């Protein structure tokens, strides 16, 4: 079992290295297939792990394997190890499965780009990093994977490096993630200081004896990392910009896998977080706030990918909510279904963009339903799943999250619950605004002019993954359909040994939520139809605050970038030039001036020389006689 897990981990890395080293020795298409095969191989290996795990009893499913000591210092010893347990297997399956589909899709999508090999190397490297993140046997390796997915994300967002916007977006993503990495690392330092270890078992067993302050600080640090990585408020601004990357990248990294790593982290470290309930509440609150804020901003975006991006933020908000509430299975389940339907939406959007030769502005689209029927169907499936209408996947995964908020009770629980419901309404609204804008009505003149009729909706290699994901978006939710004690809950049961839930909704609460949730979603859908589908009402003018994405970018510029740049300039002008460089020059000029003065004494007049001798002698003798 462990061997398969190691294979799963390193197969994509091997592919990445192979593609990078082989260079032009292999064709572009071969590079694509190599990467796809490797990721698919990982998936297969993950399935083997799953199968073996299923054959064991629930309590024996967790296993650690050490390759070698990765980092040591005195008593501190951090191994290069992997941990295979139900949680990581779930993530491995999602990552490698969805990953394989998307990488395969990319073969078609990226066809013709002159740096395809680099793309596939990066993609494979990303999958490796993500697997390292989820498989890593201790917090440091998790952080390593954490950083490496950030790196892959940077590389892939900036893949089209000749576009200034892409480069800027890539840098922004990396730097904001570096903030998260920093807080993450700080909490690790604290843990090392207090527990002397970083592997999960030692940390969790020792956590109970740590002081509240320490636990809160550790949990805050972890939350900081999670928030940055998962683009939650307030460290979310990089995600919309990240849409500058190729669409498969958006699908894989910025929807299905990497951005949900924060959720994985919260679930993985739940024993710590549970000891710092304030931080857990904070996570839930941040998640909910993100649900609303991202939903609102999504309403006014015109770029199809940005709408989906905001929707991703919003959905991850639900996962944070769930993780914060302690409904870990809910969070993970939503993570999984979200991976399916959001990847589906991105890939479908990718087909649209591909068909329109790179156009992403929804205002110029319209009427594509007739021209791209399969895509339209897929997108519709994705949207329905997103909104959470039965029987699509989102329905089964989102409702338990909202129900958990209800189950938590108290003012906070109620507030979270209401906001979550409102979020569902917003989801319906923006999702179907998008659907209607893009697909309904008559094809716009722009579309007629630009649409490539010759290759239909795209090659089979692209449509295949779309179909598979659509299927998953429909059926994926049925893994778990549970109302209290009734129904079945494959995911909950599976995760039970790893992450015991803190709250569990009753059957009644579940039912209420299902009804209300579906209704809110439908309401949103209806409003969208009213305005954008049937065009019965004029589209309201978007609020400037929403158009400007709630001024976060401006605020960060003012708070961080400009101060840093200004400080650097000021330091250069006030310290580096005058003090550091100036001091040398000043001293050397001073010494030279002294030298000139000394030189001036050497008049060339021999009488002066004699005089100096006489005078010095007089002084010398006086002093000697005086002090004798």
């Amino acid at each position, binding site marked *: 079992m462990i061997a398969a897990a190691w294979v799963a981990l390193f197969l994509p890395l091997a592919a990445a290295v192979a593609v990078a080293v082989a260079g032009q020795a292999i064709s572009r298409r071969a590079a694509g297939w190599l990467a796809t095969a490797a990721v698919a191989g990982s998936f297969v290996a993950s399935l083997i792990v799953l199968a073996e795990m299923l054959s064991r009893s629930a309590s024996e499913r967790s296993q650690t394997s050490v390759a070698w000591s990765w980092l040591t210092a005195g008593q501190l010893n951090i191994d290069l190890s992997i941990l295979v347990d139900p949680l990581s297997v779930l993530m491995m399956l999602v990552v490698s499965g969805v990953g394989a589909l998307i990488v395969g899709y990319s073969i078609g999508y990226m066809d013709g780009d002159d740096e395809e090999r680099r793309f596939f190397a990066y993609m494979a490297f990303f999958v490796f990093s993500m697997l390292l993140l989820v498989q890593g046997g201790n917090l440091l390796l998790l952080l390593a994977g954490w950083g490496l997915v950030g790196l892959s994300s940077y590389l892939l967002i900036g893949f089209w490096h000749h576009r200034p916007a892409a480069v800027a977006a890539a840098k922004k993503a990396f730097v904001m993630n570096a903030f998260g990495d920093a807080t993450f690392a700080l909490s690790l330092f604290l843990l090392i200081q207090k527990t002397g270890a970083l592997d999960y078992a030692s940390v969790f067993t020792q956590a109970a004896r740590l002081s509240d302050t320490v636990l809160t600080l550790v949990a805050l640090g972890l939350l900081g990392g999670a928030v940055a990585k998962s683009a939650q408020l307030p460290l979310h601004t990089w995600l919309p910009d990240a849409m500058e990357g190729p669409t498969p990248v958006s699908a894989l990294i910025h929807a299905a896998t990497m951005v949900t790593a924060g959720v994985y982290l919260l679930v993985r470290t739940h024993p710590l977080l549970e000891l710092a309930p304030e931080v857990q509440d904070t996570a839930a609150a941040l998640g909910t706030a993100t649900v609303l804020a991202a939903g609102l901003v999504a309403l006014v975006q015109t770029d199809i990918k940005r709408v989906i991006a905001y929707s991703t933020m919003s959905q991850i908000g639900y996962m944070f909510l769930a993780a914060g509430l302690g409904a870990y299975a809910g969070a993970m389940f939503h993570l999984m279904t979200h991976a399916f339907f959001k990847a589906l939406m991105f890939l479908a959007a990718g087909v649209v963009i591909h068909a329109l030769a790179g156009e992403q502005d929804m205002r110029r689209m319209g009427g594509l339903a007739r021209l791209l029927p399969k895509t339209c169907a897929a997108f519709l499936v994705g949207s329905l799943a997103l909104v959470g209408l039965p029987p699509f996947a989102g329905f089964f995964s989102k409702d338990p999250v909202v129900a958990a908020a209800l189950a938590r009770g108290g003012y906070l629980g109620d507030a979270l619950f209401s906001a979550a419901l409102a979020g569902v309404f917003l989801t319906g609204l923006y999702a179907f605004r998008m659907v209607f804008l893009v697909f309904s009505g008559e094809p716009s003149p722009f579309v007629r002019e630009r649409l490539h009729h010759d290759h239909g909706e795209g090659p089979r290699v692209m449509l295949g993954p779309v179909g598979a994901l659509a299927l998953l978006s429909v059926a994926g939710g049925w893994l778990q359909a549970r109302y209290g004690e009734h129904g079945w809950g494959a995911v909950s049961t599976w995760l039970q040994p790893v992450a015991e839930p803190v709250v569990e909704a009753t059957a009644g609460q579940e039912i209420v939520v299902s009804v209300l949730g579906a209704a809110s979603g439908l309401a949103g859908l209806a409003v969208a139809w009213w305005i954008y589908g049937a065009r019965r009402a004029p589209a309201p003018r978007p609020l400037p605050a929403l158009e400007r994405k709630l001024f976060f970018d401006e605020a960060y510029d003012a708070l961080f970038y400009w101060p840093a740049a200004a400080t650097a300039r000021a330091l250069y002008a006030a310290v580096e030039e005058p003090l550091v460089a100036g001091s040398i020059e000043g001293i050397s000029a001073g010494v030279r001036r002294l030298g000139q003065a000394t030189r001036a004494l050497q008049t060339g*007049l021999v*009488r002066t020389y004699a005089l100096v001798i006489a005078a010095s002698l007089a002084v010398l003798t*006086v002093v000697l*006689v005086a002090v004798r």
Partner: protein
Amino acid sequence: MTAPLVASSAGDVLVWVVWVAAAFACVASGVAVISFRNPFYSALALIGNLASLAVLYLLLAAELVAAAQVLVYAGAVVVMFLFVIAYLGGQADAPWAGGPNVQKLASVLASAAILAEIVAALALKAGDRLSRAAQVSSAFGSPRRIGQLFLTDHLLAFEITSVVLLVAAVGGVVLGSHARRVDEGEEG
């Protein structure tokens, strides 16, 4: 002895008179050496100075030195001076002319300071043994005694003195030689 200014005998008075005269001549001629515009007169003043010193040497029982002073110094060295001065013609400068004023002022100050120090050092010592001269025999400072010393205790100094003179002679010849002698037939 305890009161040096009180002469105890006529001989002492005579010695004092001679001393005062010689000392005055010595200082006066010394000042003259550095005051004349013309080096020629300065050189002549130096002869006077050397002569007065010879007198003082005699008072100090240094007969051979006094003789040498007159013969070698005044007779040979200063005459050489005079020859050179005559050869070069009367080039003269005013004693206080030229050079920065600071130089003059400082020169005087420095000289005065050195003099003051010497005198002060002597004064610090004067009450002590320095005011007494040793009792010496009449042979003290005689050519014979000095000659003996030069061949015994100061044999090496004697020899070295001759070497120094030799080197100086060679140097003088090398520097002063007028011949257009060109070694090794190289370009002139």
